[in-house]
């Protein structure tokens, strides 16, 4: 049990694959995190376990890529990937209807600061910036640049909203390893639900890393591989109201099953079926909504 001496602990964990690194990070904060209250605590729930965490995935596209402990099905995971990478849910940014005030895709691909997020109809005084296009252009021209970054935060509006972005910034750089160019990516988070959100986040963001690497490869006419992914959170936490479930379910399954039995490969038949289903469902949604989405 953490005694909080020394303040918020700072951890670094590493793994070859997404599920390995994520699982290590969650177990680390569970075992050694500080006990801190959050704004979202429920009545009677214990304080969260919290740490400043960096976890590194050495080979983001090594298999297995899926942990089985995320709060949804394969369809939801695939839809979330498409939400982040392709913006399929940007049309849900409708605060005036009680819906979302932002999506990560919207902020990264269409950044236009405003002061008021109460309505999607509020116009920005600035021209919107496709920050990912900028990153691709910058690194295609200057692969060693340190300026290839994309931000999400709007200081003019976000502090005033109930639900503001956890992801703050993506930073990219190309490095040559054994004669091969690799695109590395760091993601920086203000706050992070380690247990329920982080795995889906990294699954989607590393796919964005892949698409950026592919575009740079094409622009430069040379192979740029996906390099390591570093995930950096100021507050990486497990909420107190999840503790009971975390111990009863997650910890039990981690102890009881082999790594192979608590992960899936991307080419697993079940995973592929779920992905196909997600695309089918989205197609149906698009028809119903009359052509919205990507």
């Amino acid at each position, binding site marked *: 049990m953490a005694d909080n001496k020394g303040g918020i602990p700072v951890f670094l964990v590493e793994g070859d694959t997404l599920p390995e690194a994520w699982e290590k990070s969650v177990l680390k904060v569970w075992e050694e995190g500080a006990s801190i209250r959050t704004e979202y605590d*429920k009545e009677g729930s214990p304080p969260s376990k919290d740490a400043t965490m960096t976890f590194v995935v050495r080979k983001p596209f090594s298999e297995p890529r899926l942990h*089985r*402990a*995320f*709060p*949804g*099905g*394969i*369809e*939801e*995971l695939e839809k979330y990937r498409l939400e982040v990478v392709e913006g399929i*849910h940007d049309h*849900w940014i409708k605060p005036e*209807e*009680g*819906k*979302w005030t932002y999506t990560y895709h919207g902020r990264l691909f269409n950044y236009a600061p405003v002061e008021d997020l109460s309505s999607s109809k509020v116009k920005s005084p600035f021209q919107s910036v496709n920050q990912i296009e900028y990153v691709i252009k910058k690194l295609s021209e200057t692969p060693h640049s340190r300026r290839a970054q994309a931000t999400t935060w709007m200081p003019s509006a976000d502090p005033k909203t109930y639900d503001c972005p956890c992801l703050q910034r993506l930073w990219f750089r190309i490095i040559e390893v054994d004669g091969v160019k690799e695109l590395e990516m760091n993601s920086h988070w203000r706050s992070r639900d380690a247990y329920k959100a982080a795995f889906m986040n990294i699954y989607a963001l590393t796919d964005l890393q892949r698409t950026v690497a592919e575009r740079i490869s094409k622009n430069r006419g040379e192979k740029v591989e996906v390099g390591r992914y570093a995930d950096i959170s100021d507050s990486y936490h497990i909420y107190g109201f999840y503790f009971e479930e975390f111990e*009863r*379910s997650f910890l*039990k*399954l981690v102890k*009881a099953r082999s790594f192979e039995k*608590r992960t899936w490969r991307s080419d697993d*038949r*079940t995973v592929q*079926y*779920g992905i196909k*289903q997600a695309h089918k469902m989205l197609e149906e949604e698009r028809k119903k909504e009359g052509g919205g989405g990507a």
Partner: protein
Amino acid sequence: MVLKKISEAIIEPDPELVESLVKEALAKGLKPKDIIDNGLIAGMDVVGARFKKDEVFIPEVLMSARAMHAGLEILKPLLTEADEKAKGVLVIATVKGDVHDIGKNLVAMMFEGAGFKVVDLGVDVPKERIVEAAKANSAQLVGLSTLLTTGLESMKETIKAVRGAGFKGKVIVGGAAVTEHEASAMGADGFAENANLAVDKGKELLHVK
């Protein structure tokens, strides 16, 4: 033997295998109702029991339900009227103003696995559509979900509308934003903290096993 294989393909979820095994079972002359009860639902019963004991991850449960659904898609058109008698009809939705559907989907699939007819209206559903669907499907249960605290008002309004329209069945609510106290205050008949409890609660409210 083929029924056992179907159950196993539900337990270790493999929707494509379920599809081909269901077709094989039909080709062997097995009755659709028999395939559902002793293949699909038998497998889902095992998954449900394991889920209760925290022996499976949520995505595995959902994929098992998806596998069952794949089999049902083939079998449903072949069912006779007598076969189609479900334990009850559930109309389920995420309320207006909320587009989160993971919890709602899990509940829908668990009810289906328990032998209920489920009419899933999706997310961000206006109260009028829920009232209409409950009537049109002669539902015994209406299930409402919201992840957001901002959805609570909409949930309350929906319950009011459902009751106001003369719905005689039971309303069950859940989702991260809802507590038992709030559920009761807004006039729901039942509250469930998770998908498994939702099915138990639904059966309890309708007095079915």
